């Protein structure tokens, strides 16, 4: 079954993590679910942690 990809947005700077696209330049392959992003991962734009992101409505 195809998994539904979600988008997550940094509430500090607005940067968006799209699960479908992943973030290859940060070492996250396309399709990487938010839950599988390492806990110590930081927003590439502003350096906040995962706790500071919230889901964007699609």
């Amino acid at each position, binding site marked *: 079954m195809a998994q539904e990809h979600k988008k997550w947005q*940094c*509430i*500090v*700077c*607005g940067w968006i993590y799209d699960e479908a696209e992943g973030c*290859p*330049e*940060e*070492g996250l392959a396309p399709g990487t679910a938010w839950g599988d992003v390492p806990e110590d991962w930081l927003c*590439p*734009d*502003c*350096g*906040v942690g995962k706790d500071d992101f919230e889901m964007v409505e699609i």
Partner: protein
Amino acid sequence: MTAPLVILGTGLAGYNLVKEFRKHDSERPIIMITSDDGRQYSKPMLSTGFSKGKDADALAMNDAGAMSETLKVEIRTFQKVTSIDAEQKKLFIGEDVIEYSDLVLALGAEPINLPFPGNEHLMHVNDLMDYHKFHEAVKGKKRVVVLGAGLVGCEYAHDLASAGFKVEIAAPDLQPLSRLVPVECGQALIPALQSLGVTLHLGKAATQVIKTEDGVQVVLDDGSVLQADVVLSAVGLRPRVELAKQTGLSVGKAIEVDRHLKTSHDNIYALGDCAQVAGFNLLYVLPLMNGARALAKTLAGQENEIQYPVMPVMVKTPTLPIVTCPPQDESKGSWNIEGQSPHLQALFKDSEGNLLGYALTGECVAEKMKLNKELPASWYK
């Protein structure tokens, strides 16, 4: 009873400081004082709001009441501190007196107002309330002149043009982003902006704004005149230092603080755009967040020096993404530019080949992470 920790300002600096502080200490009483409505929002998102179809209410994430509850703080909105008695650890809001144990100045910076006739017709967008005013002013209008071709000017021009406005940029600079990227990278942005219908008047400074029946005229120093409905000025920011000066704190370009974010007076700290940390006044989100984390620890009793990681600046011009990590002012070296416009990789290296800065445009932005690792590990030492 101990006096509360008092924070002046509820922008990114103030709110993020408290958010970080509460991870260390959930009990200490905190009072936050702001001259605006205290709504929480992401400042970087102010320059992408139009293309996303968002008004000020849509950009606001929480109101002061919700923030007060979440962070367990008292928030005083629409209040302006009139003076600080640093010896007595008291501050005054008119007749009102508030005692503090520690005081944090998170006052931000304010837009530079160009000193020419008609400057009262210029609009600025530096906070959510400004954004609301500007949003209202351009409602149903079409023509916007943006003064300034720096980060904010380019981002606004891009955002407004993407949202269907007819945008003209006028700036004395000969290229966009002149303080952030080398000439070639700045010029690469010109066709990207033009593809959205933006007209650029570079090397031309505005000298006057005249109100007309159907909008405004912007007069440039070569005598040409631009017709617009609204003029947005984005020519730079000036750290808010008046209160610090009046209090007798040491002030340079901004409020001078050491690596503990402490001002020249005990128990008074400064953070964010209003602070000059160990000599550097960095008006970006990354340095501010690093400062908030370091200061939160210090205020919680774990003395902590700020250490800046590599802090690239992203320019939010999606038609041509740009990321830059400019070399520091005193760096000696030269730019080497590779690639074909608009996809450029510019590397600033010293004579021994050490990377000291970079600017990437278009598809080359993917090199960011690799280059960050090549840069000196600790910046702004």
